[in-house]
């Protein structure tokens, strides 16, 4: 590809017919990703999209990059092999709430703790769409579904809290149709290491409007878009998040005339893990939903450590197959020893 040729969203779209339900939030995410790729300077030939199983996992078929639609839950493991085999590739993992947190929970945990350099986009629609509507590990308690006709009784997992608990060094949230999503994607791409992005994605067929309490236009005041070095304000700046020192927990404070300082509103520092943990676990009653880059604190990546160790271990040793097979204590048989 000529370096001077400016790519567009179209260059990242395949000729394959997109097969999601009309109105699915996945379309919006696909568009946002295709639009963002040129801005990242991403090269299609150096980019690999890897997915597991689920509605969102069809994603790679629609990206004009290298792509691998794998098996349920295993995308992080496949991605680990791809990245270790060729660390120069840009690896994106596309997954969902069931794929990443139920059947593939183990791999999600380990790819995060190892800090493989990749972007993980978890499309959270709080439902199993592809299998026709069963409740998922992120479904709220009481969710009625074909497999839980009387309502689910188990408590849901919180994807971002799971990621932080697994040792993720980058945790962010976005909304499928939000105009801020490209910025979140850019921040994830810029982060060297495993970048975990939870995207609230509306399933129009099986779980429509489950996020409406904060995504609907009239509820936009419930969105807290975090920006580094800026106060945590929401509801048009009328409210903010402060720290209750007594209980060591967050609380909502009113802000009058923009004087957030005297209201004690916190300034966002994405390197503060304790704060990140509190932000992702804010209850949904009077609190807003924390969005944008919640935690961003880079650490050395897994594949670079592997490459370095391989290099160091191989240093000064010339590969020689004949010497290798001859290693160890050996003996020479000169001739037939029992000639008698």
């Amino acid at each position, binding site marked *: 590809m000529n370096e001077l040729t400016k790519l567009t969203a179209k260059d990242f779209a395949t000729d394959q017919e997109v097969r999601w339900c009309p109105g699915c939030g996945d379309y919006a995410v696909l568009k946002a990703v295709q639009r963002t790729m040129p801005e990242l300077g991403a090269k299609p*030939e150096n980019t690999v999209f890897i997915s597991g199983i689920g509605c969102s996992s069809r994603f790679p078929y629609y990206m004009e990059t290298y792509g691998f639609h794998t098996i349920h839950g295993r995308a992080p493991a496949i991605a680990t092999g791809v990245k270790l*085999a060729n660390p120069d590739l840009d690896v994106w993992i596309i997954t969902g709430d069931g794929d990443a947190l139920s059947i593939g929970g183990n791999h999600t945990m*380990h790819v995060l703790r190892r800090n493989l350099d990749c972007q993980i986009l978890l499309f959270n629609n709080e439902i199993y769409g592809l299998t026709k509507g069963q409740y998922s590990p992120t479904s709220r308690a009481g969710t009625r579904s074909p497999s839980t006709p009387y309502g689910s009784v188990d408590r849901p997992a919180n994807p971002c809290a799971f990621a932080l608990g697994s040792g993720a060094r980058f945790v962010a949230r976005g909304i499928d149709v939000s105009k801020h999503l490209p910025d979140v994607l850019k921040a994830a791409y810029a982060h060297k290491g495993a970048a975990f992005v939870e995207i609230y994605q509306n399933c129009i067929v099986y779980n429509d409007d489950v996020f409406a309490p904060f995504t609907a236009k009239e509820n936009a005041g419930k969105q807290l878009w975090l920006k580094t070095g800026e106060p945590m304000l929401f509801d048009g700046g009328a409210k903010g998040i402060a720290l209750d020192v007594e209980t060591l927990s967050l609380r909502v404070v009113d802000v009058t005339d923009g004087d957030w300082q005297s209201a004690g509103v916190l300034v966002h520092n994405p390197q503060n893990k304790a704060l990140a943990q509190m932000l992702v676990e804010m209850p949904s009653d009077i609190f807003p939903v924390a969005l944008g880059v919640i935690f961003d604190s880079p650490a050395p990546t897994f594949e670079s450590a592997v490459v370095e160790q391989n290099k160091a271990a191989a240093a000064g040793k010339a590969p020689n197959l004949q010497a290798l097979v001859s290693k160890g204590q050996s003996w020479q*048989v000169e001739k037939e020893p029992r000639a008698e």
Partner: protein
Amino acid sequence: MATATHIVTPEESEPHGPLEAVVVRFAGDSGDGMQLTGGQFTLSTALAGNDLATFPDFPAEIRAPQGTTFGVSAFQINFGSSAIETAGDAPDVLVAMNPAALKVNVASLKPGGLIIADEGEFGARNLAKAGYDANPLDDGSLAKWQLIKFNISQLTLDAVKPFGLGNKEALRCKNMWTLGLALWMFDRDRGPIEDWLKTKFAKAPELAEANIAALNAGHAFGETAEIGGPLKQHHIDPAPAEPGLYRTITGAESISLGLVAGTQLAGLKMFFGGYPITPASAILHHLSRLKEYDVTTFQAEDEIAAIASAIGASFAGSLGVTSSSGPGIALKGEAMGLAIMTELPLVIVNSQRGGPSTGLPTKTEQSDLYQAVYGRNGDAPMPVISARSPADAFDCAIEAVRIAVQYMTPVMLLTDGYIANAAEPWKVPDMGGYAPFPVTFHDERPAEGEQVLAYKRDDKRARVWIKPGSEGLMHRIGGIEKNVKTGHIDYNPDNHQAMTDMRAAKVMGVADTIPDQDVTLGEAGSKLAVVGWGSTFGPIHQAVRRARKQGLDVSHVHIRHIWPLPKNLGELLATYDRIIIPEMNNGQLKTLLRDQYLVDAKPVLKVSGQPFMIAEIEAAIDEALNA
């Protein structure tokens, strides 16, 4: 010094004539270092030029309670001046380091065989732990064997006294004392063992010295103590062997080396994804030290991630390899299907062990043949190769790599716990004699307006292998059925039929590039063929050799390529009047061969976690010929 209390018949006490082969079993507590003793005795045996085969037999528990029967660890070695192919049926010599070791092992000792016991360990407590009411060394219950007992523990303590070790550490040198005695018995050089001890304890020279002192004391004991009777020195002549450089090798080592050689011959980097499991872990351990051969090893979070990462690496242009044992292979099943569907090269090593479920982790079995050939959802054909011995596993690993890259397919290499752990002499191959089979990645960009055809095939029906990173060749693959031409998703009924046929034909086509089945010993058209696969090679070969010496019309056919089978196999089998198939399972190859060729093959089965004895196969041959 005590001598045996029982009466040994004159015949029994006669020294053996010039010995052709001897079977020695070292048995003790898991903490007694019997595997080390056996390993070093093996080395000295190899250096003496004897042919040999070994059988390490240890408990699944890492440190079972001391002195118990389930904590007994044993190492058997068969060595001699003629070709040795099994670890031997019954030992001639049993070294028993405690009552439990005696109890577990004595029954298999040959009548008239020699027991060397450490009487220092035969106190009331240890006797009770082993379940003995009376001391077997004194009560005459061992009368059918020859017995020598002395206090190895005390003799060791005396020998290492100058080094000021604690009692526990000093007693740890017991195994070297025992080894020293064994080296004397078989007229062996102590030099290499001393060198090994110095290297092993480089950081603690006093331990090296103490162990060497124990080794020398054991040796001197044999030399100077006038024990007489059954303890005497034997010399076993070197076995005839082709001239060349030799070393000992275990299956786990030879598979590791073969995988490295194979990937180098293919001109690829290797990515090995593994998860610890007995008895397969040794392959991960070996490969993790070979970074200079472009080997990346990855200890994954589970068996599924191990194979999945290997598939990812193959997609990215390395050769993905994974290894496990039965339970782990079961977990990898779905991912094998993905590799079959996406037609990516992959080598899966299965070190079989006793099953089902956790089964017998440290014991051997060959009961995963069905799993290898049939064990996946859908019509999911995959080539399967089986190694017959530790040395043979080297070539099998290279062959597995060749088939994987030339046919763009996962390949399963079957080995087993016996092969993985056992050692045998190996004539170091001349690597120049192996023809390279370099891989060519597809890098030709399609013409403007044309699609990338990722499922375009060559004359072997292998699809093109495109490395991500290649400009203009972006494409998507996955587990959903592919269009036979474009590789795009395609649910069309005719297309699925065509792709199913294609996958089957591709794998069957492997038979075009494997050798015809040979008759391992004997000829086509005998009255009886003994057909085997895998590690039953040794006992079958020896049994058939003995039968033929007696003039019986029997031949041995040993199959390496389990799937696809060699093209001439059906024809060859049809030439025999009768066929028996000894297997360490409930008749799996038998089913496969009956299904493929409608032959009336009769099973000879053993599923005890222990290898076949030669005598068992000989009996089966007699029975089959007389039936």
